[in-house]
């Protein structure tokens, strides 16, 4: 039998259910990996070893008395540290929540636990999920398991690195503008952002409420399918959660799609795309075509990417996304005022407003401050129509483009990121340069559609290249089946970096 950490989450769940492996053994194997690898990768804000051991022992006890086990019983899963857990801390990798202990557990995490999963730890992220490299974390710098001098992507970089380096069988991330899909691409794992509303946001610390979604980061599509099923569903605590039945994605994931029509958006294959990545993605599309899929060219005019001034790429969708996300963030982060929880300044203050202003100044990192301020500006009197309202109209146009494209195809195929993982410190000088890392992912959040990033190959430096599949709303089943078709066709799946080899 392969080593425990080389099993997929689905395989591990089966091995535990059959008694081949105990939950305690499985956890031990992962804790050992954390001990060896974590000092070099730094993916975790907190490892919950004691609690995980109790949970694993409970699974073993249940099994020995013949109790029915949940579909993820005994499987060690990591959770991004912007999801509330009633145990450990929930810091969002921010000084302002450095000691925060949430009084409840996020619904998605709760559902994992109800399915028997063992929560092994909370992973590092860009502060409040604002970033594309995890470098904005106030806690630590997470490194890419494929090359420790490079970033794991962001903002779910800790979760991506964790799964890639086999320090957990799977992980949850959150995605507001690509924060699951881009680190998945950088770390060589599968990352799915479900349709907006598919998974409850209750307990997910809010960044952009109309954009945020929780989703799985896993080694392959069947694992993503199982996790997505477990975490989805209507939640009365989240009024934006969809009142739709839960689907069994795992049951269908191995069934190929007949006459699959794959759309390639013209705008995403323009000059701006790195030629190496373009070649890998195009080869992937060709392989699908050879296997019987029909490839069609589609247009997403408002997601156009041009070479702009000063070497920056120019994109309506990026401008639209950042206005919307920053506006919503300025409102969502107003709650961190030093009054009820979180950091409060210890300096003497002259009144309550100074209490707010100084606590926030001390507690927030520079990128978070920038976004709050920009969002405040775009919503302020005199600017609301020019920026926020304008962005909402462009958002409608971006959505309409996708609706039109899906009249001609089942799924869209495009890059997940314009580059592979860049060096730590390489893009931190100019915020705008970092924002442009999201060009292929943000439209999907604006439109509320599901998107998945799957490994497509490697660049010349040996870094993973991710390709993105996008589907119409609530088409997770089709997306996962298409992803699985590609995994079986190409063999590019379940990638293991050298650092993670036993």
């Amino acid at each position, binding site marked *: 039998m392969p080593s425990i950490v080389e099993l997929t989450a689905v395989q591990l769940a089966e091995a535990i259910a059959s008694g081949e492996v105990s939950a305690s053994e499985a956890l031990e194997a992962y804790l050992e990996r954390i001990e060896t690898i974590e000092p070099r990768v730094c993916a975790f804000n907190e490892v919950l070893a004691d609690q995980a051991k109790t949970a694993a022992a409970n699974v073993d006890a249940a099994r020995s008395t013949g109790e029915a086990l949940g579909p993820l019983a005994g499987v060690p899963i990591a959770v991004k540290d912007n999801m509330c857990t009633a145990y450990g801390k929930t810091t969002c990798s921010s000084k302002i929540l450095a000691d925060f202990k949430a009084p409840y557990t996020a619904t998605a995490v709760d559902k994992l636990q109800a399915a028997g999963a063992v929560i092994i730890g909370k992973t590092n992220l860009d502060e409040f999920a604002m970033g594309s490299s995890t470098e904005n974390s106030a806690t630590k710098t997470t490194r890419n398991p494929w090359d420790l001098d490079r970033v794991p992507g962001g903002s779910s970089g800790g979760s991506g690195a964790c799964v890639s380096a086999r320090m957990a069988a799977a992980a949850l991330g959150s995605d507001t503008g690509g924060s699951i899909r881009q680190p998945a691409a950088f770390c060589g794992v599968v990352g799915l952002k479900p349709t907006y509303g598919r998974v409850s946001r209750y307990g997910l610390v809010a960044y952009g409420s109309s954009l945020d979604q929780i989703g799985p980061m896993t080694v392959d599509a069947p694992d993503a399918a199982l996790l997505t099923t477990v975490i989805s569903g209507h939640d009365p605590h989240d009024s934006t959660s969809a009142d739709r039945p839960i689907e069994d994605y795992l049951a269908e994931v191995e069934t190929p799609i007949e006459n699959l029509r794959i759309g390639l958006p013209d705008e995403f294959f323009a000059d701006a795309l790195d030629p190496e990545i373009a070649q890998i993605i195009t080869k992937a599309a060709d392989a699908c075509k050879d296997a019987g899929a029909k490839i069609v060219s589609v247009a997403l005019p408002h997601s156009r990417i041009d070479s702009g001034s000063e070497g920056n790429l120019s994109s309506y969708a990026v*401008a639209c996304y950042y206005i919307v996300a920053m506006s919503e963030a300025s409102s969502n982060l107003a709650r961190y005022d030093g009054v*009820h929880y979180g950091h409060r300044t210890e300096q003497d203050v002259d009144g*309550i407003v100074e209490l*707010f202003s100084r606590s*926030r100044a001390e507690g927030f990192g520079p990128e978070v401050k920038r976004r709050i301020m920009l969002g405040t500006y*775009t919503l302020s009197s005199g600017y609301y129509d020019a920026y926020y309202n304008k*962005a*909402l109209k462009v958002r409608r146009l971006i959505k309409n483009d996708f609706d039109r494209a899906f009249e001609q195809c089942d799924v869209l195929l495009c890059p997940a990121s314009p580059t592979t993982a860049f060096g730590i410190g390489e893009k931190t000088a100019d915020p705008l340069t970092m924002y442009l890392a999201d060009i292929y992912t943000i439209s999907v959040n604006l439109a509320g559609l599901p998107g998945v990033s799957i490994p497509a190959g490697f660049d010349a430096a040996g870094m993973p290249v991710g390709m993105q599949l996008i589907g119409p709303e609530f088409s997770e089943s089709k997306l996962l089946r298409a992803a699985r078709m590609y995994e079986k066709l190409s063999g590019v799946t379940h990638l293991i970096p050298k650092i993670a080899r036993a």
Partner: protein
Amino acid sequence: MSNIIDIDQVRHIGVLSRIELSDEEASQLPAQLGAIVEYFGKLNELDTDGVEPMAHAVGTHNVLAEDSPGESLSPDDALANAPARDGDFFMVPKVIGDS
């Protein structure tokens, strides 16, 4: 270097955002924020006359809950992370009577 946002505006935004800015921050932010706001201006190239704004992707509106009592946080749970506490109250510096 863009002139879209000057230092006075930056300080004003700081006040609205309830974030105290150091002199160093206040001097760097006009350029940083200005460059980004200038980028936002790109949307003016698009004709959006008659387009309905899209605030979110959900089909539902006004989801209401039954007006019936249920479980909520106990005072102890609610106050567990309070920086300063006085019995069942969050303690803060004096609010009333300040200008």
